[in-house]
């Protein structure tokens, strides 16, 4: 049985800002982000590493923050959905793509989905539809059926690459 233990100091860089806090060793990273840092865009949909609603970017990797302790993230650099918009506050290509292509409905999966897609497009700037589907398979959506999420990511890729987005013919 997990019980309360002495708190530990952690510090990390979140969305470009140095932060620190006192946490129990058992504190999950997602709770540290949501409760201590008050960044509630990162969501919890399962707590068992299946849904991806809690996806954040840690040192260049997509990570499900519900299955990582805050102490394990000590010293790391993290980007959450709140750090995805362009520096001037406008929507990033991905955020815009999700809106333009109707890639979201209830919005609960969206922060994790966009954060994952953000990393995917850095791993593979010009993915095929199949690569996109595989690349976001760790993120579940209950509302959209994914088709428009795929288009949203294609839209963003085209915008970033300066090419023209081709609407897939139905």
């Amino acid at each position: 049985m997990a019980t309360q233990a002495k708190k530990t100091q952690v510090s990390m860089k979140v969305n470009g800002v140095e932060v620190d806090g006192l946490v129990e060793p058992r504190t999950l990273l997602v709770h540290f982000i949501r409760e201590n840092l008050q960044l509630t865009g990162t969501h919890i949909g399962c707590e068992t590493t299946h849904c991806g609603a809690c996806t954040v970017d840690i040192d260049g990797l997509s990570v499900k923050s519900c299955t990582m302790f805050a102490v394990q993230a000590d010293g790391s650099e993290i980007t959450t959905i709140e750090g995805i918009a362009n520096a001037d506050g406008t929507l990033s290509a991905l955020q815009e793509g999700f809106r333009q292509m109707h890639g979201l409905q209830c919005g609960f999966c969206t922060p994790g989905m966009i954060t994952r897609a953000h990393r995917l497009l850095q791993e593979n700037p010009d993915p095929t539809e199949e690569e996109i589907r595989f690349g976001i398979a760790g993120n579940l959506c209950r509302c959209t059926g994914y088709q428009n999420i795929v288009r949203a990511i294609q839209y963003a890729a085209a915008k970033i690459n300066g090419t023209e987005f081709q609407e897939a013919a139905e």
Partner: protein
Amino acid sequence: MNDMTPTREQREAKLEGMGCKRKRVEDIRFTQGRGQYVDDVKLPGMLHGDFVRSPYAHARVKSINTEKALKVPGVLAVITAETLKTVNLAWMPTLAGDVQMVLADGKVLFQNQEVAFVVATDRYTADDGINAVEVEYEQLEPQIDPFTAMDPGAPVLREDLTGKNTGAHGPRKHHNHIFEWTVGDKDLTDAAFRKADVTIKEMISYHRTHPSPLETCQSLCSFDKIKGELTIYGTFQAPHVVRTVVALIAKIPEHKIHVIAPDIGGGFGNKVGVYPGYVCSAVASIVTGKPVKWVEDRIENLTSTSFARDYHMTTEIAATKEGKVTGLRVHVLADHGAFDACADPSKWPAGFMNIVTGSYDFPVAHLAVDGVYTNKAPGGVAYRCSFRVTEAAYCIERAMDILAQKLGMDPAELRLKNFIKAEQFPYQSALGWEYDSGDYHTAMKQMMEKVDYAGLRKEQAEKREAFRRGETREIMGLGVSFFTEIVGAGPSKNCDILGIAMFDSCEIRLHPTGSGVARVGTKSQGQGHETTWAQIIATEIGIPADDITVEEGNTDTAPYGLGTYGSRSTPVAGAAIAMAARKIKAKAQMIAAYKLEVHEDDLEWDIDGFRVKGLPEKVLGMKDICWIAYNAPPPGMEPGLEAVSYYDPPNMTYPFGAYLCVMDIDVDTGVYKVRRFYALDDCGTRINPMIIEGQVHGGLTEAFAIAMGQEIRYDDTGNVMSGSFVDFFIPTAVETPKWETDFTVTPSPHHPIGAKGVGESPNVGGVPCFSNAVNDAFSFLGSTHIQMPHDYWRNWQAAKALGVVG
């Protein structure tokens, strides 16, 4: 006219009214992580509550010892049924007229039932408290199988009902019987069967599943002792109903209860019910004087709050040898779990299951539903469908295929032969509904043409030959489904929830500078109401949708409404919005007449204002009318420009659609591939085609999941076998097929803007379509019906049973 004057097209486009693919207002905040869902709300001094749950499906609770738990630093209270009895809340009424334990009172009746509620300073400490609560159980024999629930020796589940031979819906035949509900003419139906050339009979099961929105159920309650006021944030699809129910059961005056449903992360029926977590967080706040939050985890969600389906439908059709249907007889065994907590309009114990005659002209029909108790979680909600409509559609669409097989007819041809014809609407069904409108033949033919149905059948015939010759191990199935939904509950003459009539409402208030706010009694959980409601208003009164803020979910500000489920928002609230807008327009017309110095009848509406007939330059725009309404109204007229409308619909609306699925199955592995899925929906007037298509994609994906694997499964002792996302099938982007959408438009004749509902149609029509595809694939090998869900393993089992694999 100078060049700067906008054209009519430009003026029209600026409104972003009905029919336009308007981008969603909600997305600005959601894409930036700035939505506010219940768990994002934090109040000063907030505590967290969590449940001790039963490991057993059926057991007596001999003792609950909370002593050690209360010694855990940070644990402030442990609430049990004994605590709740002091405020008369150990049991609560369900929406179906039954009662349900809030916390285990003497017994537990399903695995993961709520036993005690631990309140602590944070979630981790609450969990420590849970681990320290000691509960002593004595296991009892569980009743899991609904088919033996009414056996003479079946264990008694509900001791509280001992001696009660009558339930909320009439007589009970057995201690585990809840109700029997019958509709239709039994004698005439039996006679049709006696005379029939051909009959079919099949037990068609629709397994237990769960809506499982990505955000679980949650609440945050804060009781202000000084003011005697209770504020409840919660994942509520129907916030006003929650307020009234709380007022009735907690005896707090309704004006001192503030219910707020903030952003909701999907509902699909899961968030209609009233759950022990809501009640316990409220009681805990009253007890501790602090705000108390309850957040369900995924396992709790799947195993305790509101399953769906679990209908076992023995279905018979009588027909002539030419394939004309002459009678339908259905008996349903409905497994309701431990309490009857179905979320149906109160007079409908089996929802609208009597839509089971579907899209076909059955002269006679009879339906009987028996509800039984078992040691499973309560619920029976409408998972992305109108009440039990998906069960009904599955039943009739599977049965029509079985009949086609028996007659040696093509399933599409059989349907075309039996459809209600366009000229028969409004159509009185044998089981009591008046279908408002439809044109089924056109939709079906459009589908068959678009997919090249004849070509697909030809390909299938060739593949079957190749399979017989041993050249391939793949079989091909064509799933046809044609569904009629019944949505928009509902007319107060037959629809209420605990006595509350199922109207809906809208209040529109325009501001002097020509923008405004609309407050509506519904509550979006992803449907995009903030976007679409403004589009209706834009078209009705010529104020751009961008200039209308839409608000829902706060019972202090929104007019009373019955919420969002069963695709009722557009049919009911959508009508209220149009009617409120028309009241505003009527006043605007009086103002315009005064200002333009003509009679009202000499004015005509033109996109965004009024103009004098025959004098196109004499115009007054709505924006100007707004200013005048406040600051210079005609003499004797009240200033201001606002209206409220409560809409009691005269009838339901009846969306329909024609779907087709092409599937290939490898008989040696059971692995299937959805090669093509085409969905034609007719939801009447289309408010925002982009949102409609999105809803269709989402509903089809849920239908795909349900038909092909998603199930809440129990073992013989009542352990849940699929209680997490490990075993409960939620398709990822990789498994999910690609969707092709199409439409026809048959407006509802009684709805102010002709709209029906659409969000649930794809689930209703999709499930039979997938299942028919699997069954069609196997049919040439001699099978008539294979039960869902059709996962790889079951497909392989089916192939084995048919002797095509060793």
